[in-house]
C-alpha cells in the first residue's frame, strides 16, 4: 500500500495522569480503506488514545499526524475541520433536535459563516444535502423528523455515525459503536462500517470480539496503556501473549 494512504498517524503517544501512564508510547497508523481495531481490557487506555488522536487531551509526549500534517498542537475543532470525525462511548447527540437537524448542524461545521446573521441556516443546500445523505447512509432516512432523544439506543448510535458522516471526514474514530446493541442492530452497524471502509480510514475501539474479528483489517492490542501486539486478525488471534493477557477463553 502506498505511504500516501496513511491518513492519520500517532507516534509514540504517551499520556500520564500523575503517576499513572494511561497511554504508553503507542504508535499506530490509520490507512484509507481499512478498519483498524483497538482492543484491550477496561482501563487499557483505548478511550484515552482516541482522545489524544482527536485532540480532546494533549499528549504528555509524542506526536499526531493528520493527512501528513503535524497536528499535535491543534485543537479538536481544528482537527475536525481538517477531516477527523469521532463518536463517543456515551452517546453524544442533540437529544432535543430532530434527527435531521442533528445531521444538518454537524454538516454546518464545514460552512460555518457565523457572521452571516441574516441567512437562514436551513436554507444552506450544502448542509441540508449532506445531512440528508448522511441520515440515509446510516439508515435513518425514515426517522428524519423525530426528536433524536426518542430514538432507540441503537438508533442513537446510528445517528452519531450519521453526524460524523455529515461533516464529511476522511478519518473516523469510533469509540465502542456497538455497545449495548442487539444482534440485529450490530449486523446493520457492521454492514455500515464495511461500506464506510471504502474511502475512509477507521479506528474502531470495540469490546465485541466477534464483531472485531469480522470486520477489522488490522488489530492492535493494548494492555495497561501499552501495545502488546499489532497485526492482521489471524496473527493476533494466534499470538500467545495476547491470548494470555486478554483473549483468554475466546476461541
Amino acid at each position: 500500500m502506498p505511504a500516501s494512504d496513511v491518513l492519520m498517524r500517532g507516534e509514540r503517544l504517551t499520556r500520564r495522569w500523575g503517576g499513572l501512564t494511561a497511554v504508553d508510547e503507542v504508535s499506530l497508523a490509520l490507512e484509507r480503506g481499512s478498519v483498524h481495531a483497538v482492543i484491550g481490557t477496561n482501563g487499557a487506555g483505548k478511550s484515552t488514545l482516541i482522545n489524544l488522536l482527536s485532540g480532546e487531551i494533549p499528549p504528555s509526549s509524542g506526536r499526531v499526524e493528520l493527512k501528513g500534517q503535524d497536528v499535535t498542537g491543534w485543537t479538536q475543532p481544528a482537527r475536525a475541520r481538517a477531516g477527523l470525525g469521532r463518536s463517543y462511548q456515551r452517546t453524544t447527540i442533540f437529544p432535543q433536535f430532530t434527527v435531521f437537524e442533528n445531521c444538518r448542524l454537524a454538516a454546518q461545521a464545514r460552512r460555518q459563516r457565523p457572521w452571516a446573521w441574516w441567512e437562514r441556516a436551513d436554507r444552506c443546500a450544502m448542509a441540508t444535502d449532506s445531512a440528508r445523505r448522511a441520515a440515509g447512509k446510516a439508515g435513518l432516512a425514515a426517522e428524519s423528523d423525530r426528536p433524536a432523544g426518542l430514538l432507540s439506543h441503537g438508533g442513537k448510535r446510528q445517528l452519531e455515525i450519521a453526524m460524523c458522516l455529515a461533516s464529511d471526514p476522511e478519518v473516523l474514530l469510533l469509540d465502542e459503536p456497538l455497545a449495548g446493541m442487539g444482534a440485529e442492530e450490530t449486523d446493520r452497524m457492521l454492514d455500515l462500517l464495511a461500506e464506510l471502509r471504502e474511502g475512509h480510514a477507521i479506528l474502531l475501539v470495540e469490546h465485541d470480539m466477534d464483531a472485531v474479528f469480522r470486520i477489522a483489517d488490522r488489530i492492535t492490542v493494548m494492555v495497561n496503556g501499552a501495545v502488546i501486539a499489532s497485526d492482521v486478525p489471524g496473527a493476533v488471534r494466534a499470538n500467545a501473549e495476547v491470548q494470555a493477557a486478554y483473549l483468554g477463553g475466546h476461541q
Partner: protein
Amino acid sequence: MATGNARNAVALAVALLALALFPFVAGKFGIDLVTKIMIYAIFALSLELLVGQTGLVCFGQAAFFGIGAYVVVLMSPQYEAVSIFWLAPLAVLFAALYALFVGALSLRTRGIYFIMVTLAFAQMAYYVFHDTPLGRGTDGIYLYVKPAAELFGVALVNLDKPVSFYYVVLGAAALTFAFLAVLLRSRFGRALAGIKANEQRMRAAGFSTYAYKLAAFTLSGAIAGFAGALFAVKDGFVNPELLAWHLSGSVLVMIILGGLGRLSGAVIGAFAYALLQEFFQSSAIFGVFSKHWLLGLGLTIIAMVALLPEGLAGLPAEWQRRMARKSARTERAGV
C-alpha cells in the same frame, strides 16, 4: 409547526399594535411605566441570548446595562444636546468592549464558576462607578440636556417628549426582537443552540465553541448597553445601582418568569415582573403592607416558577398539551 408559527406571528402583531395604540389611552404615568418596561425588555432579551439560547448563565448583566447608561451621561456636555446617533453607538461600543473583556476571561470557566466570575466582574465595574471620581459616587449624575435625535441637522423626534420617546423605545425593542429572531435562525444562532444542547458534540463536529460563546457574550453585552443608554435618556439620571447585582438578579428573574428558550419569554417576563412590582408596591391596594412589597413579589414569583416550568410564554403550549391529554382521556372513556 406551521400553525404554531402563524399563531406566534399573530400574537406578535397584536402585541405590537397594542403597544403602538397604548399612548392614545394611557396617561403620563402609564406611558412612563411602559417605556421603562420596554427598556427592560431589551435588557432581558440581551440576557435571553446568553441564558436561554446559549446556556450561559451570566449573573453580571447589569454591568453592561450600567456602562451603557453612564457612557450616555458622561459623554454629554453639560449645556448642549449631543446627537443620540453618536451617543448610543458609543454606549454600545463601550458595553461591548467590557463584555469582550469579561467574556474572554469568564468563558474559561463553566457552570457555577462562570456565574460567580461574571458576578465578580460586574461588582468590579459597580465599584469603579461607586468609589472613583469617574462615577461621582452614590449620588449619581444628572443628564441636564437630553440628547438630540437629528440626522444632518434635521430633528427627527424630540426625545424630551415622553410620547415621542415611548415610540423610539418601542421601535428599538421591536428591532432588537426582530434582529435576534433572525439571528437565531442563522448558522450562528443554530450553533449557539447546539452549544447549549451538547458542546462536546459541537467541538467534535468542528466548531470552535469558545469563539462562538465569546461572540454571543459580546453581542449580549452590546444589547444590554443599548438598553442602558435608552434608560439614561429616559430618566436623565444614572447612579451606580444600575450596575448592581440586584439588577442582574432581577433581569434573570424576568427571563425565568417569562420562560427560558423563547424570545417572547424575555419580553413577557419584563412586563410581568414590572407589573407585579407595581402591584405589590401600590399603597392603594395593600395600604401600609405595600412597604413590604418584596415579600409579596418574591412569593408570587416562587409560586409562578414552581407552577409554570416553561414560564408564562410556555402557557399556550402547556394548555394545548393539557387539552390533548383531556380529549385523549374522554375518547378512551367514550370507547
